[in-house]
């Protein structure tokens, strides 16, 4: 299977070094991105879509690594809620990622891959890079910024720290402050990777060995958190995998085990383990209130954008209460905000799946 390094990605190199929240600076910075739909003459129809942890810039076109349709193909496209006949949609791979933007697998100044020498980045750093990309593209205002999960955190960060850019901010299944439970799950994933002897303190590039087993376990653990008990029961129940009886061994007897093993191993062929460490670290550091003097409402004090916040009743990873905190903070500063908890059975993954009410909300909000 092709890796990101082997595929032709559309990208630009930022002219300036990127100053990071850690105090460090990153240069050179390459941003890989895709666009869909025409930019209007007045440049007023740009919509920035921010991807989730393991997403990429291929929001609505075939992913060249997996050959699969774009990760939000059902939402972005001609005649779809984020309508590329109306909007110029931009989606960039986050820095720290592994689909062409500068990340831990990129070469540092000494010609060797960064590995763990890559600086720890934050959600705000990811957004800084995208703001710089918009600058290079000559786009000063966004009709909207849209994101789910980690993408929603980026949308929040853009609205809070670059209030002059977005006219609308749409946040789906996300939070302003990463809660302890989510930090905990991500730590399990990182520990699985770093405990794999093939990880080699992150310097596995070019050794012919990568921490695939650790990364697969990280993905399996995370994948469970993206689903709901209802969807697991519905999809698999206690059904056995290609056998009539339990094996009295440790094979994948159950369908759910087989499914998770497949999810884990297929993930390793498209994702870099060090990127997984850096991106989950960025999420665990995310605390919009802390960044604004301890009060979430302060984050939105200068905002002129309309906000729309969506949660799902079966999402136990980013439950509705976290969304309500955002709503209350936006209410406190008098920002125009819409909020709805949609009913969908798919857990956190609902934002990527067939939820017709989400389509209605996205369509309506983007036309406000």
């Amino acid at each position, binding site marked *: 299977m092709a890796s990101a390094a082997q595929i032709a990605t559309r990208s630009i190199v930022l002219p300036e070094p990127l100053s990071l929240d850690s105090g460090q600076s990153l240069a050179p910075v390459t941003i890989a991105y895709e666009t869909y739909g025409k930019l209007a003459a007045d440049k007023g129809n740009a919509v920035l879509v921010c991807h989730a942890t393991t997403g990429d810039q291929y929001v609505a076109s075939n992913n060249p690594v997996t050959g699969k349709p774009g990760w939000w193909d059902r939402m972005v496209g001609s005649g779809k809620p984020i309508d590329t006949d109306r909007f110029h949609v931009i989606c960039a791979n986050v820095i720290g990622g592994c689909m062409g933007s500068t990340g831990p697998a990129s070469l540092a100044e000494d010609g060797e891959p960064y590995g763990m020498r890559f600086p720890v980045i934050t959600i705000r750093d990811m957004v800084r890079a995208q703001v710089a990309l918009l600058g290079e593209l000559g786009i000063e205002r966004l009709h909207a910024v849209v994101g789910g999960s980690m993408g929603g955190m980026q949308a929040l960060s853009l609205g809070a720290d670059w209030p002059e850019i977005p006219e609308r901010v749409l946040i789906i299944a996300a939070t302003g402050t990463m809660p302890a439970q989510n930090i905990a799950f991500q730590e399990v994933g990182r520990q699985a990777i770093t405990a794999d002897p093939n990880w080699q303190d992150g310097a596995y590039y070019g050794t012919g060995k990568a921490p695939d087993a650790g990364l697969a376990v990280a993905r399996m653990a995370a994948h469970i958190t993206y689903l709901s008990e209802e969807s697991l029961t519905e999809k698999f129940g206690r059904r056995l995998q290609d056998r009539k009886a339990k094996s009295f061994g440790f094979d994948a007897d159950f369908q759910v085990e087989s499914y998770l093993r497949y999810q884990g191993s297929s993930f390793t062929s498209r994702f870099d383990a060090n990127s997984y460490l850096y991106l989950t670290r960025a999420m665990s550091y995310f605390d919009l209130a802390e960044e604004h003097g301890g009060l979430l409402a302060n984050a939105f004090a200068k905002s002129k954008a309309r906000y729309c916040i969506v949660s799902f009743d079966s999402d136990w990873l980013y439950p509705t209460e976290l969304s309500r905190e955002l709503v209350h903070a936006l209410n*406190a500063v*008098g920002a125009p*905000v*819409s909020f709805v908890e949609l009913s969908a059975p798919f857990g956190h993954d609902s934002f990527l799946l067939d939820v017709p009410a989400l389509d209605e909300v996205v369509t309506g909000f983007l036309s406000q």
Partner: protein
Amino acid sequence: MSGLRPDLALIAANVAPGSRVLDIGCGDGTLMAALRDDHGCRVQGMEIDPANVTECVAKGLSVIQGDADKDLAFYPDGAFDYAILSQTLQTTMRPDHVLEELLRIGARAFVSFPNFAHWRVRLSLLWGGRMPVTRLLPVAWYETPNIHHVTIADFRAFLSERGITREQSWFLSGDKQCSRSAANFRAEHAIFLLKR
């Protein structure tokens, strides 16, 4: 104003153009849309039913899914020129707290409710001995969302106890306005414009 329910039409006609309005219990957003489109108001809404919220957002309205009993606390003082609570007061857990919140976040508040002392209601209780099921109170006692029935006389007494100013009031019977005299007997439905 065509197409608006008579009580909503009365409210819309008495909102100053260009005002900032919060419509609590905004339903499918009919009043909000009229205030936005015909009166140039900056309107936000709160609604407890997610299907209604979805419909409002799909119409391009800013509406949050929320509960008047819990979620008004998060708005700052004087955030709106008007807070509107139409046909919702009697469904709240603590109508007194909700009314105080309306007058905290809005310079003025429109409050409308079905009058439990309307003669049909009285007759139903007096002759039938049954909880009334009427046009404005269409649901049986065991499943009605109306948990705090109130009469016009009760409401007037409440206003004077709390020192709340009634700027205007309207009374409706069969979708037509009726006079203030004997309103507590004759009106199915009351609308008050209040101020602290």
